[in-house]
Structure formats: structure tokens, C-alpha cells
């Protein structure tokens, strides 16, 4: 802050009277000492324009000295760069360690034990809950067949179970490759099985769908009125992938262009509301909360249109899906501090 405080003060006085105190020339003189040397390109071009050889005569003298200084400077900068990064990588190891310990403690303190009552107790104090939660999952697969897929299906069904317990009626699962879309019935079976391990045989209904894939509903044989302990009667899950992002906007553009070519539509009719309605219909609406289970905020192709006002939550340096991350996201959404201990 206090860099060049005298000049800053003058600037502020000038700004207070809407810059009528100083003339442009005075202002330029004020900032002159803080300007870096102009890029080398301009003097070269200027000298070329003038075409005066006398400028070149005194150049070599300064050049060799400048060269040495430049070399030393660049060595110094490389050294400082190396120092900064060494310190940083030490710092980040410590930070990762700290976060890993903290996450462990949270994971021990807050565990669901597959009991809906415990999960409900965890979220009892929250003033508001999102209607639509979205998660980004990654297919962790070293190219060896089903292991990654199996883990992914398990993560989806765990998260679905937590959402059902908390009372969130809508869950969208984003997975870039879209591999899950090929296994909609199998995923639905896995989710149902997981729900029955939480709620017993009388679990809430689940509907699972993906854009452009017919949805799979729960068998209607379970009498809905009998479900006890679940705040919602039905959970709907949407599976989305990277093709529902940019590509869906491109597809919409194609359709609109075709309509416009057949003069069924004038381009003046295209507005935000039209696109929003189409995207909400064709893919999904806006989620209120997006939970990332990765160490940083990287959206990896998540549908852009829907992200407008979504609250994005991630735990720094976190790896993998965990109940405590999910819970902390809900706490953060409700603007409540989470403390150690219940």
C-alpha cells in the first residue's frame, strides 16, 4: 500500500475534484518515475524511421555493458524463481498435510453410518437447502476395464443416498466421458440397492435419466405412503457429460440456423429466454450448488449455460468423494460455519 505515498496522495486529491487539479502533462510527470522502460521494439522502429546512422555509433559501447548486466540480471531472476518455487513446494506439502489431517478429522467426526437419522441430524440446523445439487465426478481408471466404472457407480449411489436422506429432490452427476450413460439401468439398480441399505426395503423411488436417453423409473410396487424416515418421496438423478455442454449449445445453433434458412424463424427472435428454455428442456435447469471433489476448481467441461449463479464448492487439496465434503458444501451453502464436534 504505502508505495509512493506522496504521489498517491496527490492522485487522490486530484481524483476527489474529478481530475481537474492536474493537467494531463502534470499527471504524466507525476507517474513518470514509476513507468518501466518502454518495450525495446519502439526505439528500434523509431531509429529505423529516422534513418540516422549517428544513433548506431554510440550503441556498441553501451551494448556490451548492458549485455553483462542483462545476463547477471537474468541469472538473479532465475535464482529467485527457483527459491520461490522451492519454498512454495515445501509450503504446499505442509498445506496438503494439514488439509489431509483436517479432512480425516472431519471424516471421523461426521460419518453417516448408513443411517438416515444421523444424516438428518447433521443437517437439521441448516436454514436452507438447495433444490438441485450437482456433482462433478472423475472416472479414475488406468485403462483396466471395470474397476473405475464400478467405483464411479458406487460414488453415484452413495451421493444419491445422502441426497435422499437430506431431502434434496434433484441430483445431477457430471462425468466428462459420459461412460455412465451407457449403463443407465445398471446404475439405477445400484442406486436402488444402496437406498435399500440405508432405508430398508421400503425406500424412496428413484428416477434416473440422461439427456436423450429414456429415463428409468423405480418399480411402482413400493407403496409410497409407507416410507418412513425419508424427507422426500422421489429422487431424480440426471447423468450428464461433456457433450451436454458446448455441444448442446452448438446443436441448438444448428437447429436455429436450419429454421432460419427455411424462414421459420428470424434471428431477432433469438434471445436469452428462448435459449434458456431450450437448454433447460433439452439438458437440465440451473443447479444451485455444484460440489467438486477435486483439489482445485476446474470445471472440466461442465455445461456452461447452467453455471450462471451456481454456488461452486470445493475443499482445497481434497481428493475423492467423501461424506464430509458433501456436508461441508451444504453448510457452506446455508452460510453456516462448521465446527469440530457436533
Amino acid at each position, binding site marked *: 500500500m504505502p508505495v509512493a*505515498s506522496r504521489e498517491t496522495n496527490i492522485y487522490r486529491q486530484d481524483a476527489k475534484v*474529478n481530475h481537474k487539479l492536474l493537467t494531463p502533462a502534470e499527471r504524466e510527470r507525476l507517474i513518470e518515475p514509476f513507468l518501466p522502460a518502454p518495450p525495446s521494439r519502439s526505439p528500434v522502429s523509431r531509429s529505423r524511421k529516422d534513418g540516422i546512422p549517428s544513433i548506431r555509433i554510440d550503441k556498441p559501447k553501451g551494448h556490451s555493458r548492458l549485455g553483462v548486466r542483462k545476463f547477471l*540480471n537474468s541469472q538473479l*531472476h532465475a535464482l*529467485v524463481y527457483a527459491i*520461490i518455487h522451492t519454498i512454495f513446494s515445501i509450503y504446499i506439502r505442509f498445506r496438503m498435510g494439514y488439509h489431509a489431517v483436517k479432512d480425516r478429522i472431519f471424516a471421523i467426526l461426521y460419518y453417516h453410518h448408513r443411517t438416515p437419522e444421523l444424516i438428518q441430524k447433521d443437517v437439521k440446523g441448516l436454514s436452507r437447502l438447495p433444490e438441485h445439487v450437482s456433482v462433478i465426478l472423475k472416472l479414475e481408471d488406468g485403462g483396466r476395464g471395470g474397476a473405475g466404472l464400478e467405483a464411479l457407480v458406487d460414488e453415484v449411489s452413495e451421493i444419491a443416498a445422502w441426497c435422499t436422506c437430506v431431502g434434496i429432490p434433484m441430483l445431477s452427476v457430471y462425468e466428462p466421458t459420459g461412460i455412465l450413460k451407457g449403463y443407465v439401468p445398471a446404475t439405477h439398480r445400484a442406486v436402488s440397492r444402496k437406498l435399500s441399505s440405508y432405508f430398508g426395503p421400503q425406500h424412496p423411488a428413484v428416477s434416473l435419466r440422461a439427456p436423450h436417453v429414456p429415463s428409468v423409473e423405480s418399480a411402482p410396487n413400493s407403496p409410497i405412503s409407507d416410507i418412513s424416515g425419508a424427507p422426500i418421496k422421489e429422487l431424480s438423478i440426471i447423468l450428464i457429460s461433456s457433450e451436454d455442454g*458446448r455441444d448442446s449449445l452448438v446443436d441448438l445453433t444448428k437447429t436455429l440456423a436450419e429454421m432460419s434458412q427455411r424462414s421459420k424463424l428470424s434471428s431477432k427472435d433469438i434471445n436469452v429466454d428462448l435459449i434458456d428454455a431450450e437448454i433447460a428442456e433439452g439438458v437440465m435447469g440451473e443447479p444451485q450448488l455444484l460440489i467438486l471433489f477435486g483439489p482445485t476448481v476446474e470445471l472440466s467441461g461442465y455445461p456452461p449455460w447452467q453455471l450462471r449463479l451456481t*454456488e461452486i464448492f470445493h475443499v482445497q487439496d481434497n481428493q475423492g468423494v467423501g461424506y464430509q465434503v458433501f456436508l461441508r458444501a451444504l453448510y457452506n451453502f446455508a452460510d453456516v460455519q462448521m465446527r469440530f464436534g457436533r
Partner: protein
Amino acid sequence: MSAMNPSQLRKWILASPPMQWGIHRLRELLIAALRQGTVPKHIAFVMDGNRRFARSHKIETIEGHNIGFESLAKILEVCYKSGVKVVTVYAFSIENYKRSKYEVDALMEMAKIKLQQLSQHGQLLERYGACIRVLGQRELIRPDVLEAVEKAVDVTKNNGDCFLNICFPYTSREEITTAIKGTVDDFSKPLSAQARPFSQTRITQKIRSRNLSTSPLRSTSPTPSSTSDVDDSISSTTTLHTDSPHDGQDGPIYPDPETITASHIEDHLLTAGDPPLDLLIRTSGVKRLSDFMLWQCHEDTEIVFLNTLWPDFDLWSFLPVLVEWQWKQKHIEERGFGNGNQKLKTKVR
């Protein structure tokens, strides 16, 4: 002097010339050192927290915005010195028009004055090759402010070393919609019919005329002129008939909409031509994008949410973000080499 309390003494020491010189050198050194690594080409800032800063410091809201502007100037200096090509800032959302008229007017006035001031220093900007662009719905800007905007953009439009994109009344959804509209417009323009030197109608006419010249020969030989008359009239009516729907079908040829790709839409975005967004920073702890750069940031962009308020945001809070970005970039590069090391590296991470 003796009555100074410690905080004042600290301030006095920090403001003393040798101290200032030292801090200045240190800043320069750090920035120059950062240049040694990869530096993001395109950074976007959501300048959030001016009002909260004003409230917590018990100053007027507009003063908060003024300090926020100074903070922007300082950050821009750091960015361009460390080698960032494009900086995009979210200055004003279309939604912000819903704020109190007093604040909106004051903000507009501020933008006008700063931009006017900027255009006065055209030469200085040229020396550094600084180019200013204003992205957004210009039709929503007040006419007198728009004039200042256009002047500032005009003065700097030929510079091309570093760019500042000011998103003035901007929302990303509006931007995407405009891009889609532009693409649709492009694809509903008929392709120019004179693209090839051969015309289809001429060819059909020629074929028909040849048919005409051959068919009468066959027909006239056995029969008298009465039938040839009928033949002629039929052929003339058929040419008329076939020609008119033909024109309607062939005349406007449209480009195939199936060939539309994401890059077509990208070319119509307001940031067309800029390098991909590497880093997006939002201050003041709000973890939302608020309709900013949705299309640009949803792939590989690193998004960072900081708890500092924008007026407090300076080199010392920016540096860790930049260093972490560089560190991550280096890791990605390392993982790119060789598969054997890959597992080890990811485990370390």
C-alpha cells in the same frame, strides 16, 4: 515524533524513502523472477468487494469503488510486467443496473472520467502498446459515457502488445446468445450464386434447346406443320413451368448447418481472438461465477476464489495464486513426459 504509537511508527518507516525504494526493488525483482516460468496468457478478474470494503471502513460506497479502481491499476501493472497478454475485468454487470440509481450514476460518472483521462494519454498508451476494449451491450450505456468509451477504444485500437478487456454492461448469457445469433445469421446468408462461372439455368437451357432441335426433326418428317406447332407450345410452357420452381429451389443455396462447430460460436464471442482463459480470480469470498465468462472458463481454466476484498487485493495476495498456478502447470508438464513416472507423480500429488 516521540508521541507516535507503534502503528504510526510502522507507517512512517514504511513511507520513508529508503524503505519505499527497497519495496519497489523487491516488487520488481519478484515480478521479473516470475517471468522465468510460464505465465498465464489471459487472466480474468471479478472485482468484488468494493462495497463491503467501504462499509467496513465506514466510507462512502463510491469511495470504495475509487479505491477499487486504484487496486485495479496496481494489479494491471503487475500483470503486464510479468508478461500477461490479456486481462479481462468484470466492471459492471447488466444486473447491476438494478442497484440504487445514485450508485449506478456515480459509477457511470467514474467510468466516464477515468476513460476520458485515459484517452488524454494516448501517446503514453501507444508507447506500451496497450489496447483497451469494452465488451458488452453498448446500447445500455448512457450516451455521454458511451462517447468516452468509444474515444478510449478508438485511441488505443492500433496497439497490440497487451490488452485490457473491460466488461462493461456484460453478462455471459447475453454474450453467448449474441454469438449464437451471429452464427445463425452467418448460416442464413445464401451462398453467392456467382461463385462458379457456370450457371445451372444456362446448362438446362442448352440441353433443352438441343432436345428441341433434335425432336422437331424427328417429328416433322412424318407429320405436317400443325403438330410441330403444338409441340412448340408445349415445350415453351414446360420450360416456363420447370424454370420457375427451379429458380426458387436453386437460387438461395445455404451453407450446411451441420457444419457448425463450437469454434464458429467462439469466433462470435466478444473475446474472439484472445488466448484461452488460463486463470479466473474472484475476490471477496463469493463462490459463484455470476454470469461471467461462462463459455470461456468451463474447461481448463483454473478458478480461484479468494477471501480478500478487491480494494485489499495487491501483489502480495496475487503472488501466491500465480506461483501456485505455475507450480501446477509444471506438474502437468511433468506428467506429460513418460508413462513410467506418471503414477509416481500422481501419488506424490
